[in-house]
């Protein structure tokens, strides 16, 4: 009797030690239950149809409804290949030298309407997005078709296996599938219904979308991750008026800020009013840049373009326009926020980073070579969207250009007109913001620099650069690829078709009772909300 009791105690002690060592040493254990109010900056533009939009206004409030094949770990900040975790895919492997990507899917996943999830859904979704001829579904708008041009065929040999057959090796494809922009739609549901509702596999079920007011979610009791989500419900509160939503966050009516919406100054103000707020500065993967029409004078002349890049003092811009809430970088998000950022010494050698006087002098010299002098100034129209963020940026740039002899007048373009204007090349120079769905050079360069891409507003086309893009896309060795991407970044800055000005920071703010909501260095890829809990 005694021995068995001692034995039992010993075993329990051992188990206790084992359990204690296995549990993460976080201060508290997650609590179940509770509700969170999250800020929603504006009304959802196309409901939950993530595949038909490119705006965070749709992706952030839709993430809880969906799952991807793979995502970046929602509890870690860095978006690297090491931090990829499977959601709908249990395991995955590259085969045939990065030519085939095989996913082994989970078997215990159900759609919110009860139907089982199978490989058919994956094939349906990505055939639809890449506009395969045999695709069963069709998207009304398809902004990311170009992400999948290298996919030859998608095979679903059995209900829990999917194979992406690629035309050539492309290690970057896996990372693109981890973006918040790559959820899996249901094959048994008309894709158009995602504009009004959401049938997903995610940790939360859509309860109600009251137009213009809020989006309500309730916990998905059948979520495949046992024990998740912790929260009972979510509400994304739509507040368009900037002052009102800051006040609501401060007054505690909102628990979480909207990614990308809190500037440095606003964060300081919030912290002063409510010292307990938890503010995490992260990068947004949103850059300020200048687009120039390379097909028409004067910006068809690369010297003039380069002069523009020299004229703009990057550090002064960050200080003036963002009050320090941004970081300098080239076409990939800079370190430590992005994996592919140029090394410090390379970055500082780019135009606009040296001593302001020297840079401006260099700009004037280049302009003089193009025949532009103080006696013969260049007059251009700088277009920008009629939104404060854009206008502030453009005003600063105009000031900088004035100092080197380029007289630019501001032309505000309404949102609806911006993309058609840019795509049709009906502008000379413009101040632009670009969000990158994922920190992956393939996504970036095919979208913004490839010949004929609809988002290549500068209409820049260079055989050499295309070759460089293709080359880095197929490079399997990580170090070699890094070097290739670095060269590519330097090259496009030298061509100056789309000079990069800076990368914005967000001061993501949550109330202290919100636990485990970890912002990423990319506003589009976090917010699944499955790991988040509330400390009453």
């Amino acid at each position, binding site marked *: 009797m005694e021995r068995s009791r001692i034995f039992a105690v010993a075993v329990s002690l051992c188990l206790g030690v084992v359990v204690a060592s296995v549990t993460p040493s976080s201060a508290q254990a997650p609590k179940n239950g509770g509700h969170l109010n999250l800020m929603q900056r504006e*009304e959802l*533009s*196309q*409901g939950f149809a993530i595949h*038909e*939009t*490119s*705006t965070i*206004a*749709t992706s952030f409030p839709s993430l809880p409804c969906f799952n991807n094949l793979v995502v970046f770990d929602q509890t870690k900040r860095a978006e690297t290949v090491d931090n990829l975790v499977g959601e709908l895919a249990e395991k995955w492997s590259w085969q045939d030298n990065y030519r085939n990507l095989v996913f082994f899917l989970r078997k215990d996943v159900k759609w919110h309407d009860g139907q089982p999830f199978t490989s058919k859904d994956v094939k349906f979704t990505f055939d639809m997005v890449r506009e395969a001829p045999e695709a069963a579904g069709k998207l*009304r*708008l*398809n*902004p990311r078709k170009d992400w999948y041009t290298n996919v030859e065929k998608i095979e679903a040999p059995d209900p829990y296996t999917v194979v992406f057959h690629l035309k050539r090796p492309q290690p970057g494809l896996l990372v693109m599938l981890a973006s918040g922009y790559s959820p899996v739609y249901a094959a048994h549901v008309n894709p*158009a219904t995602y*504009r*009004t509702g959401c049938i997903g596999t995610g940790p939360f079920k859509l309860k109600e979308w*009251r*137009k*213009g*007011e*809020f989006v309500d979610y309730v916990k998905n009791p059948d979520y495949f991750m046992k024990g998740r989500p912790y929260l009972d419900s979510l*509400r994304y*509160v739509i*507040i*368009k*008026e900037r*002052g*009102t*939503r800051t*006040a*609501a966050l*401060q*007054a*505690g*009516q*909102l628990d979480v800020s909207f990614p990308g919406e809190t500037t440095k100054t606003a964060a300081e103000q919030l912290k002063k*009013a*409510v010292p307990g707020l938890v503010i995490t500065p992260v990068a947004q993967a949103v850059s300020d840049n200048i687009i120039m029409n390379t097909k028409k004078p004067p910006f068809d002349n690369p010297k003039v373009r380069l002069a523009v890049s020299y004229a703009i003092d990057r550090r002064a811009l960050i200080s003036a326009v963002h009050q320090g809430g941004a970081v300098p970088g080239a076409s990939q998000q800079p370190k430590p926020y992005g994996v592919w950022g140029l090394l410090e010494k390379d970055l500082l050698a780019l135009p606009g980073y040296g001593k302001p006087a020297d840079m401006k002098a260099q700009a004037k010299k280049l302009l003089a070579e193009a025949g532009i002098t103080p006696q013969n100034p260049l007059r251009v129209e700088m277009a920008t969207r009629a939104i404060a963020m854009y206008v502030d940026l453009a005003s600063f740039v105009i000031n900088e250009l004035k100092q080197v002899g380029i007289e630019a007048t501001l032309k505000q373009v*309404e*949102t*609806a*007109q*911006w*993309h*058609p204007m840019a*795509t*049709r090349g009906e502008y000379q120079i413009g101040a632009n913001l670009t969000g990158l769905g994922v920190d992956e050079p393939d996504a970036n360069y095919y979208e913004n620099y490839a010949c004929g891409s*609809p*988002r290549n507003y500068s209409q820049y086309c260079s055989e050499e650069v295309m070759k460089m893009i293709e080359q880095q896309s197929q490079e399997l060795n990580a170090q070699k690829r890094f070097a290739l991407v670095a060269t590519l970044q330097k090259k496009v800055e030298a061509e100056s078709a789309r000079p990069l000005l800076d990368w914005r920071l967000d001061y993501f703010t949550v109330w202290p009772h919100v636990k485990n909501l970890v912002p990423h260095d990319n506003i589009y890829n976090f917010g699944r909300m499955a790991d988040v809990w509330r400390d009453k």
Partner: protein
Amino acid sequence: MKTYIAQRLGIGLLTLLGMSIVIFGMLRLAPGDIVDILFSTGGYVNPSERAAIEKELGLDRPVWVQYVEWLRQIVTGDLGKSYRYDLPAWEIIRPLIPVTLELAVLSLIVSVVLGVPLGVISAVRQDTGLDYVLRVFSLAGLSMPSFWLGMVIILSLVAWFGWIPPVTYVSPRENFLLHCVQFALPSLAVGYRSSALIMRITRSSLLEVMREDYIRTARAKGQSGRIVIWRHALKNAILPVVTVIGIEFAFLIGGLVVTETVFNLPGLARFLVEAILWRDYPIVQNLVMFIAIVVILSNLFVDMLYGFLDPRVRYGH
């Protein structure tokens, strides 16, 4: 009387028809349409996809065909489908109406409760210091931008108390007290502005009436001054006030546009701005027509009330 109402309604209908043409035309004048905006949320443009969506929404048909189609829909009670939400317009507009109407009615009540007594006091104490103070006070209400007043209120509240009224709509059934709190401040903000006009008209019409001979006669007859004012003067002075109240109600909606935006109330005024920005024609057209109908009906109602209150005025001759 009945012919008069019928006549007025008939004219009202004609006016609505004319207005529908104006609104329809103006919207299509606007640069950019819903398809442009949809593409802007996608961040790109594609001509073939564009053509497909235009066809789907019926935007590729000639303008007059679309107009006739819209009229036909209204007559059959179908308000069309929102371009943005892909849902019946009525379904989207319906929950907005009670919010705006409630806000409008509450604001009107505030304006009358504030305006009429102040107008009376100001008239009775004409040209005294109090009169000037009240006139300046009411004029300040007319001069302040209502969105500024709302903003200052909210910012002051959060700065001093760390509290603001609920930013999500609280229905009276959910939590009556909170609902009242939520609607109190915006009604006050809008009501203050309208009260200015009502106060001025009350004051002026009361002054005019008080000069009338029969008031002097009544005074001479010995009835105490106060009773004289309240019984005789007010009854006659009330008529222009009623007219102004009616007009104000209709034009309150203009002030509601910014107030609903600042206080984040889900009414149709705020929604109208959003719909205009999104070129969601069906929603804009229907909301504008709705506002126009409210204006016409309230004008008619006021004229009826006028006729009822003033036996000298009779319609239908």
